[in-house]
């Protein structure tokens, strides 16, 4: 399999995860979106040296991976493109912030080192929370939740169509590169002289297919909106968001961590 096929395969796998008949997948889309947003906002709001309180926020992804029957290994693997970027954000910190916070024997731990780790943890938690969201919610689900939040229709439709067309663009690219590779077996990759032609072909073919998709939509009454069946909010949807908002809020704004720590010490 080439890289494009690998990526299409990843999309297929994510799609399979989204379609599973699990409790978490059945939650109202708005519940899943709001919980993720609350979590990400709270994680991002921690102080740059507050590593202890931040670490306890692992409870949310831990819970979601357990209940959502998701594999942490797969999650980290699938987010491998974003993870290094997110983790690299704090790398310069040790050079700028040299204030010594703790002495571990003769080794000085500076503020820069701590803030670098804090940024890395924040990045990791955010990526994991996003993975939980996309592994349990389809593009349609997320768009439905956005519509519930009164995000403008045009923006939601654009997101939805991007979701639709991205797979189509990928499959066209896969066909073209496969056809090229089969007729250039001794070449490694695509020769730069063929790049222009292939990209041109790819765009033209994708546009043709997109046109057929659009025509098909119009013939079935598409008038600029994707109608969806209305999904009622159940009690457990409300409770789920509420409980997480309270738990995460408590972990962030109260001394809950110290309290838990004291309980363990006692």
């Amino acid at each position, binding site marked *: 399999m080439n890289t494009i096929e690998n990526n299409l395969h990843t999309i*297929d796998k994510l*799609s*399979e995860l989204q*379609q599973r008949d699990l409790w978490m997948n059945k939650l109202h889309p708005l519940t899943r979106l709001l919980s993720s947003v609350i979590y990400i906002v709270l994680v991002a709001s921690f102080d740059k040296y507050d590593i202890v309180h931040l670490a306890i926020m692992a409870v949310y992804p831990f819970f979601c991976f357990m209940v959502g029957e998701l594999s942490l290994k797969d999650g980290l693997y699938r987010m491998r493109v974003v993870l290094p970027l997110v983790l690299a954000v704090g790398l310069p910190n040790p050079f700028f912030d040299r204030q010594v916070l703790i002495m571990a024997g003769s080794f000085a731990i500076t503020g820069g080192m701590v803030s670098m780790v804090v940024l890395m943890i924040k990045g990791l938690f955010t990526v994991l929370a996003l993975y939980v969201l996309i592994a349990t919610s*389809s*593009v*349609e689900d997320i768009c439905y939740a956005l519509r519930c939040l009164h995000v403008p229709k045009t923006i939601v439709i654009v997101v939805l169509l991007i979701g*639709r067309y991205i*797979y*189509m663009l990928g499959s066209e690219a896969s066909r073209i590169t496969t056809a090229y590779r089969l007729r250039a077996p001794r070449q490694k990759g695509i020769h730069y002289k063929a790049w222009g032609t292939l990209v041109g072909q790819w765009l033209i073919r994708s546009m043709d*297919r997109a046109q*057929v*998709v659009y*025509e*098909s*939509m*119009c*013939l*079935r*009454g*598409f*008038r600029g909106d994707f*109608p*969806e*069946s*209305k999904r009622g909010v159940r009690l457990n949807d409300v409770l789920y968001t509420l409980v997480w908002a309270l738990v995460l809020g408590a972990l962030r704004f109260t001394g809950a961590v110290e309290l838990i720590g004291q309980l363990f010490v006692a």
Partner: protein
Amino acid sequence: MKTGTEKRVLEVSDLKYSYEKGHQVLKGVTFDVNAGENIGLIGANGVGKSTLLKLLVGLDLHFEGTIHVSGHSMSRDSLTHIREHIGYVFQDSDSQLFMSTVEEDVAFGPRNYDMSETDVEKRVADALERVHITNLRKKQVYKLSGGEKKLAAIAAILAMEPDLILMDEPSVALDPRNRRNLISVLGEIPGTKLIASHDLDFIVKTCSRTILMYDGVVRADGPTKDILENAQLLEECGL
């Protein structure tokens, strides 16, 4: 044999169409379709079969002549109404199915016409039942085989309960088993169908009337058996 009392679902009169100046694809096509008829549309490559089908559903309105669908004249204003009466099964089912699951795709049309969820549910169940793919209801579209995609595409059109279904090369890329299955399914579906195909055997098995196109006009229109047994006519028309 047509009688004056039959309900006419499609009337095409002196239809002319050009992709570019000097290259006229359709040079005055005239025919009509009565309710309940199964009609094969045959002709050599490039004769304008697919173009004709696209004009019949209003995907291009730059034509001369007249098209009436269920009594409505084809124009920009009547498009929404016309498309409620006419369904089009594309040659490439891959592009026709754009929702994530079979169920969602089949429900797309009825939902767009503001039906209640109960009605949508009923339409989806009926359409899937008719083409015998109820078991694929929750299946993701990309996981379907070629034959299943074709049936799902037909179900998506059936869910809209059109007066007339147009099909562009429905048997293309199907293996013999799926082709046989499609023939059987089409035989069970009531209603009016206009099927464009090169697959003459498929036309024999699904259509009682055939329209033969050649050089941008209707060269012959009559019982399928009579037309397909006329080897000289077929040869003259490039088939």
